[in-house]
């Protein structure tokens, strides 16, 4: 064995260690639990850490390994974003509204991963109801970026990204509605993938914007993401938007040796949207992204410019649709059956007002208000229908672009992690930072972000890869070849307790 600390190791390394009985799952879980105990006060990446449950899971995994029945993830520790319902465990969605909600059932993703034998260390922090790009709207306080405490980890899956970056968990689940996996992955120097809409069941994923929400994976590398994503996908008849396709073995696709070892990406055409490289991104990001593209070319890929003329309309379209759906999705949080209910109220109406007024934070209220407005009589056509039209135009842009290239590449975010509070006075400024990620959700396409460098302040920069529908294997393979040739993804933040 190498002298890599276990917490820094890849999933496949941990797999070999577990299978060779060099370490037990219980010991492995303890490594991460201890690390969480040390670093969590600084990072606040978790809402819930369930040590006993994790050790019980690990014990069961050890029994399974002993019987020779281990799968690729059996005994591997993981953290779930607190948006996924977990039976018997607090499922808060980062909100005071659900600060008392212990789910009576498991999300489909949670069931699949339990069946795979993963060890759940806990539930990660997130923007309240996944509404935000910084994890600052969480009822449980902000998560800090491991690269620079005092800075945001991105969001909404900021807890998962920070946990993987700080090696509090080797892998973590997330959800991505407008960039909520890719943007925190880029802010925290980890790899994150959001698959094609419909590939991961939304059953048990607390809805923000149903037509955009999609579960996905965080890992220290594309390889680790491939293992996790492969275990999360699969048809679920309880989700009407779930796609009935045979699951793919992404990890096996990466393991296959390339035809030309020197030029493993030969034949791959990478499209560079003119619109993504226009003004808007910082110079440091441009430098890092250009260097990454040069690396892709060095690996055999060719790059060419493509056009996404409607991509600039993604932000208004995204926020109209997401907020409209959110305003309806969050109606169920009324204090009647579960969740927060005001202690004192005069009548039914007052109970609704006070329970929701107290239970929701400002950003959630803002989005419910805007969403309610755009669906209102007289405004529906001008906002909601118009946004749906833009959505079709954006999907059509991608369709045309993919006639000319295999993948699209560009920056994940126009900015790197900002200081806590820096954007909170101007929500629109924060919304605009989602410019490169939201078009992907609107079109329902898969997207991945992988580390590609750092800015002058030492904050990570991510490269986004966008693929055509069901091209997850292609995305992961491209990122994997890049990571075999580079070490950006292996850089670790200096963390002292």
């Amino acid at each position, binding site marked *: 064995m190498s002298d890599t600390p276990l917490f820094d190791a890849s999933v496949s390394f941990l797999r070999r260690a577990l299978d060779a009985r060099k370490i037990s799952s219980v010991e492995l879980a303890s490594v991460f639990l201890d690390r969480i105990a040390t670093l969590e006060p600084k990072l606040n990446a978790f809402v819930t850490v369930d040590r006993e449950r994790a050790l019980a899971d690990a014990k069961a995994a050890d029994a399974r390994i002993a019987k020779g029945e281990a799968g690729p993830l059996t005994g591997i520790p993981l953290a779930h974003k607190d948006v996924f319902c977990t039976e018997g465990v607090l*499922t808060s969605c980062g909100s005071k509204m659900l600060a008392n909600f212990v789910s009576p*059932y498991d999300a489909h993703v949670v069931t699949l991963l339990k069946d795979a034998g993963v060890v759940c260390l806990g539930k990660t922090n997130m923007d309240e109801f996944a509404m935000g790009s910084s994890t600052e709207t969480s009822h449980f306080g902000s998560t800090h970026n491991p690269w620079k405490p005092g800075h945001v980890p991105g969001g909404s899956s900021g807890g998962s990204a920070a946990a993987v970056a700080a090696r509090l968990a080797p892998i973590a689940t997330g959800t991505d509605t407008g960039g909520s996996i890719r943007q925190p992955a880029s802010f925290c120097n980890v790899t994150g993938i959001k698959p094609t809409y419909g590939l991961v069941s939304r059953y048990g994923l607390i809805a923000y914007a149903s037509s955009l929400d999609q579960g996905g994976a965080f890992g220290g590398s594309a390889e680790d993401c491939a293992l996790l994503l492969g275990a999360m996908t699969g048809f679920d008849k309880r*989700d*009407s938007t779930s796609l009935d396709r045979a699951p793919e073995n992404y990890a096996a696709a990466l393991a296959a040796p390339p035809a030309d070892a020197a030029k493993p990406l030969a034949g791959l055409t990478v499209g560079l949207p003119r619109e993504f490289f226009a003004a808007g991104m910082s110079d440091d990001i441009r430098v890092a992204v250009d260097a990454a593209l040069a690396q892709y070319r060095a690996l055999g890929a060719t790059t060419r410019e493509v056009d996404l003329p409607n991509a600039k309309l993604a932000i208004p379209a995204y926020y109209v649709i997401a907020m409209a*759906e959110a305003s*309806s999705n969050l*109606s169920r949080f009324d204090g009647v059956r579960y969740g927060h209910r005001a202690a004192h109220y005069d009548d*039914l109406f007052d109970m609704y007002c006070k329970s929701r007024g107290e239970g929701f934070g400002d950003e959630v209220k803002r989005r419910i208000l805007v969403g309610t407005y755009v669906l*209102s009589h007289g405004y*529906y056509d001008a906002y909601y229908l118009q946004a749906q039209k833009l959505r079709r135009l954006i999907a059509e842009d991608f369709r045309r672009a993919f006639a000319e290239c295999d993948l699209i590449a560009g920056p994940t975010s126009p900015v790197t992690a900002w200081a806590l509070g820096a954007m909170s006075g101007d929500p629109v400024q924060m919304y605009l930072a989602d410019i490169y990620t939201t078009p992907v959700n609107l079109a329902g396409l898969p997207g991945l972000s992988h580390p590609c460098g750092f800015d002058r302040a030492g904050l990570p920069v991510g490269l986004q890869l966008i693929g055509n529908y069901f091209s997850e294997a292609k995305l992961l393979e491209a990122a994997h070849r890049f990571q075999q040739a580079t070490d950006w993804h292996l850089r670790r933040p200096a963390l002292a307790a």
Partner: protein
Amino acid sequence: MSRSDWEVVIGLEIHAQLNTAAKIFSGASTAFGAAPNVQASAVDCALPGVLPVLNRGAVERAIKLGLALGAHIAPKSVFARKNYFYPDLPKGYQISQFELPVVQGGAITIHVGEGDAAYEKSVRLTRAHLEEDAGKSLHEDFHGMSGIDLNRAGTPLLEIVSEPDMRSAAEAVAYARALHALVRWIDICDGNMQEGSFRCDANVSVRKKGATEFGTRREIKNLNSFRFLQQAIEYEVGWQIETIEDGGKVVQATVLFDPETGETRMMRSKEDAHDYRYFPDPDLLPLVIEPEWIERVKATMPELPTAMQARFERDLGLPAYDAATLTAARETADYFAATVATAGDNNAKLCANWVMGELAARLHKAGLEIDAAPVSPAQLGSLVTRIADGTVSNAIARKVFEALWNGEGTSADEIIEKQGLKQVTDSGAIEAMIDAVLAANQKSVDEFRAGKEKAFNALVGQVMKASRGKANPAQVSEMLRRKLGA
């Protein structure tokens, strides 16, 4: 101005609860009467993260109604969210259909009035759409609080909307009855109005005769019997006419009918109306109905009442009245058809007489529905056969029927045999009875000979009495006349 100067305009919205075993989006049971919340699944309770999955059985029932009404079945329809807050609406929205309903258009023929005043009319349908029911709020037994029972939440409903084609309460009731019979006929709804399986909302307005614009309407909500429907509309029409004649104005509103007072009262005005913020439900894909699906459903459809009525007239030679009466309800039609299957097509009219006459009267007296009749169609059919072949007279047949009703035998033949009710046609036996009667009634014989026809009838009666009703009355009459040399 008199009432006859006004024209009444009525359109109905009827919620028919579909008789699927499972709810429309959750798979939980729809059975009525369970303890509160026992039949509320995670989806029905709208727990965080749950999702709806459409029950195709509910769609199939909508297709059946569309076929029965001759309506357009939309190849693509869309489920939408109707957003409003209420404690028994767990998601804060109802999944319904708004812009693109599954059934569009169609018409139904209604029969209004009786006797010479009876007439037929076709009422057009606007649409029928699928939606889920809400739960129930329980306001008693909770000491100033309310209880919520979500057993009913998610029960499939078909909301059937008519055009404003009805012009009186009687027409509205006839329409509701026709639709009620139809949904039961095609077996998509049990029609149980007490349990709320078939609920009516009536949109009522009045206008001056000859006016081209509709008056302002008020909607009477949740009428759960035909009687209440009639009473509520009649009251509402009177109130609207009076209001206008007194110089007032009808304001668009939703009203409730109070069966205690027989009056309608305002629930909310248009100003208070909700903005439901309908939008397509992103959790459900558009409902696509391929022509093959419609064909498969069509193959399972029973013969429709109008077709069956025509067939009864054409093939069985029934009068229109009989054919219409027998096809007014599926159970009656089924019973009649089974009776004819035993008795033969040639005896169809006789079967019709018995089903509409003796059987209907006896059921009414006993307060039973036809599908619970103690006399089976096969039993009645065999009895009709025995009347037709002269084994029993109509009078004796009624005795056999009564015996069958009371379970005194398993078949008409068994009762006729056991109770010795077979008609006597042996002329020797009848002649002996005649001779005995003539000998004992010399006075009547004399009177007959003196020209009193009534005396003859008395003698026939005596012979029939002597035969305990079993002699063939026509045969007795003929032989008696011969004996008396008449």
